[in-house]
């Protein structure tokens, strides 16, 4: 790999492919897409249930077929697609160290676009108590095992979590001969919206909210899970696995290790309204920005950031002085969390995306230079997208702040 390419896109999921295709469509010459797995598609490759592609391609794809469509789109657009290529690190000037099946290569780019996606939080980072036996897996691991190798990690798992993905995980179990023993949620209510949250009950899987996980037992494989119910009673369930679902986090380790500033709330790269990180040559889009949105959302976001990168290539790189958008608890994150003033480009992001850390009722308001410009009052739920239009004046304001006044 010699010379400097125009753009390297890291990650071949919906966001990365959409960005790369958009860059080529806008006439950018050398666009390289690096994917560490053997094929494109990202997490959609093993999502056997969620349909993809309706809005971007006008038809529905399931699982690997969507990745194949992405691959065809990228190649047709003239993107230099390289699978099996894992980026180890990059420096501030966008020189990448890449390991490939044949050896280590370096690659230099005028701009870098990170689209490394998100993953579920594993057992360790959740600080779950007990032993550390075989059979504690995430939904991603379960679905990848089934999709790629037809392997099942358990027969009678306890499912932890009640997000949309948790319901999908239960369905995956049931359709592959596994019978979840129970579904446990540490929050006080199921997190998935109706009607999805009714699914476990319909499938005959007992659901407990507001639990405390007390112990996980197993010498070789998982044998039992002990938890405290919301009513205080302690219950032990025999099982042969624990399925950890949801609690997605951006897979931002490449950014973190390479010195790209992360946002404390989202744990993804901090970006401005163009998708630009604090390194003016490095952009980011898709679920690495915040966990998580649908594949279709990631696709559109990637395309919008791709457009912003194309516009940026025509300009001299300068470190604009982005300002931080601030918020207060229980608001968990705001994306974009930065705003760069004085830019006349149309922004890639027209809305602030907010998430709440917990269920809360009260007034959410946006204040620009201390003046309220937007407000809404209702019940806010965790893991739900909240969209607030970015007012044109925000980019040039001194302070942009999300306030929350909770009802007692």
């Amino acid at each position, binding site marked *: 790999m010699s010379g400097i390419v125009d753009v390297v896109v890291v990650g071949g999921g919906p966001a990365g492919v959409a960005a790369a295709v958009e860059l080529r469509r806008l006439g950018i010459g050398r666009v390289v897409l690096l994917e560490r797995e053997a094929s494109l598609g990202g997490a959609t490759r093993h999502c056997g249930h969620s349909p993809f592609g309706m809005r971007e391609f006008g038809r529905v794809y399931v699982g690997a077929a969507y990745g194949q469509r992405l691959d065809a789109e990228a190649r047709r657009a003239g993107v230099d697609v390289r699978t099996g290529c894992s980026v180890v690190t990059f420096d501030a000037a966008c020189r990448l160290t890449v390991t490939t099946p044949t050896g280590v290569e370096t690659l230099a780019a005028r701009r870098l676009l990170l689209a490394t996606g998100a993953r579920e939080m594993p057992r360790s980072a959740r600080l779950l108590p007990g032993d550390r036996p075989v059979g504690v897996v995430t939904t991603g691991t379960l679905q990848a095992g089934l999709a790629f190798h037809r392997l099942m990690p358990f027969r009678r798992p306890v499912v932890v979590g009640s997000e949309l993905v948790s319901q999908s995980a239960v369905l995956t179990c049931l359709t592959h001969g596994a019978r979840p023993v129970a579904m446990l949620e540490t929050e006080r209510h199921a997190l998935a919206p109706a009607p999805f949250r009714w699914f476990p009950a319909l499938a005959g899987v007992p659901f407990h909210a507001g639990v405390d996980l007390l112990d996980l037992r197993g*010498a070789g494989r998982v044998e039992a899970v002990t938890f405290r119910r919301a009513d205080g009673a302690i219950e032990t369930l025999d099982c042969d696995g624990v399925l950890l679902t949801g609690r997605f986090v951006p897979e931002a380790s490449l950014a973190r290790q390479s010195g790209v500033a992360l946002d404390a709330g989202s744990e993804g790269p901090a970006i401005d309204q163009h998708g630009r990180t604090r390194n003016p040559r490095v952009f980011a889009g898709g679920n690495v920005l915040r966990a998580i949105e649908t594949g279709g959302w990631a696709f559109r976001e990637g395309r919008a950031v791709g457009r912003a990168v194309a516009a940026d290539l025509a300009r001299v790189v300068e470190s604009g002085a982005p300002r931080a958008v601030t918020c207060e608890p229980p608001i968990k994150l705001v994306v974009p969390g930065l705003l760069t003033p004085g830019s006349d480009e149309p922004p890639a992001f027209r809305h602030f995306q907010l998430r709440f850390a917990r269920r809360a009722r009260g007034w959410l308001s946006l204040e620009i230079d201390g003046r309220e410009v937007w407000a809404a009052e209702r019940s806010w739920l965790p893991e739900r997208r909240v969209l607030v239009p970015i007012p044109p004046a925000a980019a040039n304001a001194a302070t942009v702040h999300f306030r929350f006044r909770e009802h007692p």
Partner: protein
Amino acid sequence: MPHTPSCTAQKTFDVAIIGAGVVGCAVARRFALEGARVVVIEKGGDILSGASKANSAILHTGFDAPPGSLELEMVRAGRAEYLAIRHSLGLPLVETGALVCAWNPAETAKLEAIAAQGRENGVDGLRLLTAAAARATLPGLAPGLAAALEVAGEHIIDPWSAPLAYLTQAVMLGGVFLRNTELIEGAFAGDWTLRTSAGDIRAASVVNAAGLYGDTVDRRLGLPAEFAIRPRKGQFVVLDKAAFAHVPRIVLPVPTEITKGVVVCPTAFGNVLVGPTAEEQEDRVRATVEAGTLRALLQRAAEIVPALAGMPVTAVYAGLRPASDSKAYRVFARPERRAITLGGIRSTGLSAALGLAQEAVRLHAGFGLPATSRPPAPEVRLPNLAETRPRDWQQPDHGEMVCHCELVTRREIEAALDSLVPPGDFGGLRRRTRAAMGRCQGFYCQARLAEMTRGRLSTPLAVEEAGS
């Protein structure tokens, strides 16, 4: 006659070693190098199934060991041999040095005495530092630092590859490793007959290196009860690679009577380790982690090095140290029974193992058995897992990256599965390759690993093929 393992049939070993922890592996290597026919009997499914799988990976100097103690002598001898053989075995050494950090006047007052004891213990490279001087070598230390004692010789090693290399060398010399083999009873009548869960084994001598079961094994061998194991649990948190830059050296607390206290140190794998706790318990099997304790460790780490606040957690684990009813190592030789007990190796086993192996050979020489001739030492080069030296992903034609977090290649995993001492369980595979040990803990690679390890592990990653 009970069933006899086929590989041991009709054969009397010179030395049977009970326990394949780091001490057992080192003892097997030493006796094999002396020309003895050795057998290692391990109750677990793999080496390092007990205390040896969870430690802080520090190669100690012995600066804080009790003066004149056997532990000090063993640590110093073990360390010296590790430094002498590590190149030939392909084992890493991360020369970090350590800072014993004092955070208040009372702790500062103790540093001088610790330094004096260290010098008495024959340890060089001890230097009392002002807070500013200490921070010059480790800028991330919190502003509250009062003073520090630098111990230049405390280093980091790979705690899993070292014992694997020792046992591999023994196996190359004809040593036999029997896993899933528990000693039930031993009888001495000129030779030892060891009744095990896998059949009878005959040996001229036995070495008890059973760690957490050291007292139990002595009892099963009919040896006098000299000590009792009191398991001491230690919980650890491993922080993401991004933490490594903030902790270039080992940060030790001023020790208390009970424990060396919570250590913050880099690992050979490019992470940062925080721990251990010291919790007495009866149970010798379960080493559970507790959320509250882990949170307290994270908080303590952030108090010591503020940049660690909010650092992602990569892994959590707990181990049991085979402490005994005394602080001292419990080493006994019974020439009339040709038995050696290496017990109560409570916290410095990784550093002392090679020294204990030398000691075992020295004690064994007093048993009056005919001398054996020494074979040439076979070459062992384990795949390098440490970040201080080139790894496989940097070499051409590794085939495929399987674990992206820890940068583990397909070639490395296949090599471990086909090695002389292959992994017996998933933990063993992780310790041999680092696969699935990283921040995602297998989210991306465990399905692939399940497929690659089909039929190879005692507890398979997949229970069966999917139904539909």
